[in-house]
């Protein structure tokens, strides 16, 4: 009897998949909110839409404690070095959501001061259209990112880049060409 219970309560998986499963339900977002998209980001975190249902409620204002940067709003040329520095301060594995028209393309702000899409200077995993996007759209982006992490994440965060290089798929938001030599394993 005891032996039978034991068998029914055990399942086997691979370490990578177990790690990815844990990882995708515990995003720690770093809110880089500079404009009205930031308000929608806050609404997504508040009780009505409740980002906690997707395990991503622990917003950290220190990049060193976060693994998902949500860039919500326009980024000006004076802010971009700050944004890059924050991205570099985040530990691997890490992901980036570009939320809204401004972060993704500059939006209506086609002026000397506004960066025309953060993906010119940073790797971006998911783009969210909208001006500003509704919370449902951001939640959709988080679900999509969860799928991406389950599919492509590895125990070491850099692995997903290597896999993409092997498969020849375009790397979203990065300048790497398909088929380039693999980075050295670390």
């Amino acid at each position, binding site marked *: 009897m005891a032996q039978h219970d034991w068998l029914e309560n055990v399942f086997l998986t691979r370490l990578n998949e177990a790690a990815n499963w844990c990882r995708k339900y515990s995003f720690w977002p770093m809110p880089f909110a500079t404009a009205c998209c930031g308000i929608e980001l806050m609404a997504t975190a508040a009780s009505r839409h409740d980002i906690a249902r997707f395990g991503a409620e622990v917003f950290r204002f220190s990049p060193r404690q976060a693994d998902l940067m949500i860039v919500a709003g326009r980024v000006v*040329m*004076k802010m*971009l*070095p700050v944004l*890059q520095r924050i*991205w*570099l301060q985040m530990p691997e594995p*890490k992901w980036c959501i570009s939320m809204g028209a401004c972060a993704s393309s500059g939006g209506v702000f*086609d*002026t*000397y*001061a*506004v*960066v*025309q899409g953060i993906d*010119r*200077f*940073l*790797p971006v995993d998911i783009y969210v259209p909208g001006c500003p996007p509704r919370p449902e759209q951001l939640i959709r982006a988080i679900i999509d990112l969860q799928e991406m992490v389950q599919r492509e994440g590895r125990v070491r965060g*850099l692995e997903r*880049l290597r896999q993409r290089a092997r498969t020849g798929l375009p*790397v979203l938001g*990065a*300048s*790497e060409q398909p088929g380039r030599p693999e*980075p050295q394993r670390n």
Partner: protein
Amino acid sequence: MGEAQVQDKAEAAAEQPAWLDFVEQTIAALRARFGQEAIEESRFRDNVRVIVPATKVYEVLAFLKNERGFDFLVDITAVDYLHYPNARDRFAVIWSLMRTDNGARLFVKTFLNEPDLTVPTVFDLWKAADWLEREVYDMFGIRFAGHPNLKRILLPEEFSAYPLRKDYPLRGRGERHNFRRLTREQS
């Protein structure tokens, strides 16, 4: 709406506010002090402007503060009249003043032309001029002689243009693209 209608409506709406009398007396006092031809006045409803030569602007502003009680410097701004129809001068600098105890408002304006884009600072009259003058310098390249710390306030210090000038392109000269690119591998 025709000119006459506008006037009728303005007359019907209210009598002249009390502070406008004070502003009119102020302009009379300015003319008594600096001469009739140095103080040019223009007016739209309760919006009163005096246009003074750049050489006299500091004395005019000091007079308005010390003798006429304009204790609040609301704003300093500038205009680029490049391509403006019938404009004789390139730049204008405008000081917006207010007297807080009676609500009187007055605009002081002066015109500037290249190459001498310098006006005296009014930092010693109103401390508020500190950042306002830095902003005008940042956007138009107009210098305020005697300012204690005249450097860019909004744009990065290494920025090389004055973006609110009309000959500066709206999309800039590549400043927004001039950054290194971070890739997945590097970060």
